[in-house]
């Protein structure tokens, strides 16, 4: 079996989540990788351990990875593959279901475990249940949760890069602009430590009080939906059912109550710390270590204890 993995890239690099997708795909068969619109990223993809061949699509119509042309491209390539895989990122979730529909396939999103070539485990109901599903489709189209598969090493591969011919696609959608947040911190979905704040942070200014702690721990910063909706931080920091799914070594939740939708995004973290003034807050039910107290008092104490 040969599997095609659509890779997410950023500034000439392959995102770590996509290396996890490669690792997952390698358990199914030989891995070919598809990189859209970035030659440098194709070079990086060729070095990933386990990638046998890289397909590079350079057609200008594919720049910005709009779903319409990329799904068309995937369909044109699909004939050679048993599975089409991507990381469950915004890009993967935007493109793969569209390609699946064109192939008359029911996609399998957010796979957390591959049982065999046809059988996969995926969370449903915000992670309150795990469904094992068997697909009867001839071809499988899946997105995988990066947090559940170790990333394939970025080095060690020596794949050839083949450049693809352009595909015809109607230009009914047009890229206008992108606003990416600049941050020196590790990426939220692959950070070793995540420090998250909720409504308890009160406002945007107070939310920044988490930065020294995050700096000290080399952590990414996350947030609850309430913190994002209240405008304390940008949308891409939301952790949860409909935000980022994270599983760091250490997750520190400050002023977060622990609604199931939030837990859905972080309860697979190795160690969870919760700081909340309400002893009944549900976050304590999943926390390994809890402190009941005012976070504005505990935070400076924590920083000084860390030294």
């Amino acid at each position, binding site marked *: 079996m040969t599997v095609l993995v659509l890779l997410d890239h950023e500034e000439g690099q392959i995102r770590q989540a996509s290396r996890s997708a490669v690792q997952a795909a390698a358990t199914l068969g030989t891995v070919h990788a598809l990189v859209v619109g970035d030659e440098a990223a194709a070079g990086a993809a060729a070095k990933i351990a386990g990638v046998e061949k890289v397909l590079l699509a350079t057609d200008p119509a594919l720049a910005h990875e709009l779903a*319409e042309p990329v799904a068309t491209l995937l369909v044109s390539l699909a004939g050679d593959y048993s599975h089409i895989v991507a990381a469950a990122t915004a890009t993967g979730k935007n493109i793969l279901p569209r390609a699946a529909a064109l192939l008359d396939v029911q996609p399998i999103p957010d796979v957390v475990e591959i049982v065999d070539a046809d059988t996969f485990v995926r969370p449903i109901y915000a992670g309150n249940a795990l469904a094992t599903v068997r697909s009867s489709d001839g071809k499988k189209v899946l997105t995988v949760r990066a947090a559940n598969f170790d990333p394939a090493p970025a080095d060690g591969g020596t794949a050839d890069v083949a450049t693809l011919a352009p595909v015809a696609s109607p230009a009914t959608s047009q890229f206008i602009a992108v606003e990416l947040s600049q941050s020196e911190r590790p990426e939220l979905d692959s950070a070793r430590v995540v420090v998250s704040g909720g409504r308890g942070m009160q406002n945007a200014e107070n939310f920044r009080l988490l930065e020294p702690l995050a700096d000290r721990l080399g952590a990414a910063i996350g947030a609850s939906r309430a913190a994002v909706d209240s405008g304390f931080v940008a949308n891409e920091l939301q952790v949860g059912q409909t935000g980022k799914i994270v599983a760091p070594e250490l997750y520190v939740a400050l002023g977060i109550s622990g609604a199931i939708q939030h837990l859905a995004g972080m309860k697979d973290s190795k160690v969870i710390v919760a700081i909340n003034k309400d002893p009944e807050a549900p976050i304590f039910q999943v926390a390994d270590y809890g402190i009941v107290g005012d976070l504005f008092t505990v935070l400076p104490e924590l920083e000084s204890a860390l030294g």
Partner: protein
Amino acid sequence: MKILVPVKRVIDYNVKVRVKADGSGVETAGVKMSMNPFDEIAVEEAVRLKEKGAATEIVAVSIGVQQAQDTLRTAMAMGADRAILVLTEESPEPLAVAKILRALVEREQPGIVLLGKQAIDDDMNATGQMLAGLLDRPQGTFASKVEIEGESVRVTREIDGGLETVSLQLPAIITADLRLNEPRYASLPNIMKARKKPLETIAAGDLGVDVAPRLTVVKVAEPPARKAGVMVGSAAELVEKLRSEAKVI
């Protein structure tokens, strides 16, 4: 312009879902059901577009059992003009839902189909993208802003690194994310009015769509429980435990 809004009846988001002892699914008997929260946001957006004069008619659609009528009445109480219930024995998979919606789109010819980004029961996040593919129409998924500009629609999308803006030629498919708007509560007079709005029922079979599932559920299980943690008295004690016991810092 007409807007079609697919709304799904799901277990209410406040309910703590329980897995059935025999592993065949989750407990639904006697459980509170509501409109999928993302679909409320989609309905709200459609109503606002109509209030702004950008849309003329809003048609809510649900695919599922008879009780999905309640969900459609809610959509009409929020401002949808009429509703269509496509009757099936259970809620079909996104591929089948997308095929049913395609048949309705061909009949109704809406300028926009505005879906939720994700149903909070199956968490698929797929139907809108699939419908767009089947219809060969442009898609604006995970929308946090929707602006009609003549023959096109500008959609701001929530992506992993921030926000992306695309312009789609109409007709188009849009899926609503959490921050698109805050849905209104239906007022009592509007709930009363909604009872008189037209609700058409169609048997899925009459649309000629094959709804047979492609995925067989082998089993549904509880996720592994986390073992109980401990409360610590101070930040210093926490740091000590993280260093020497958990060894994560």
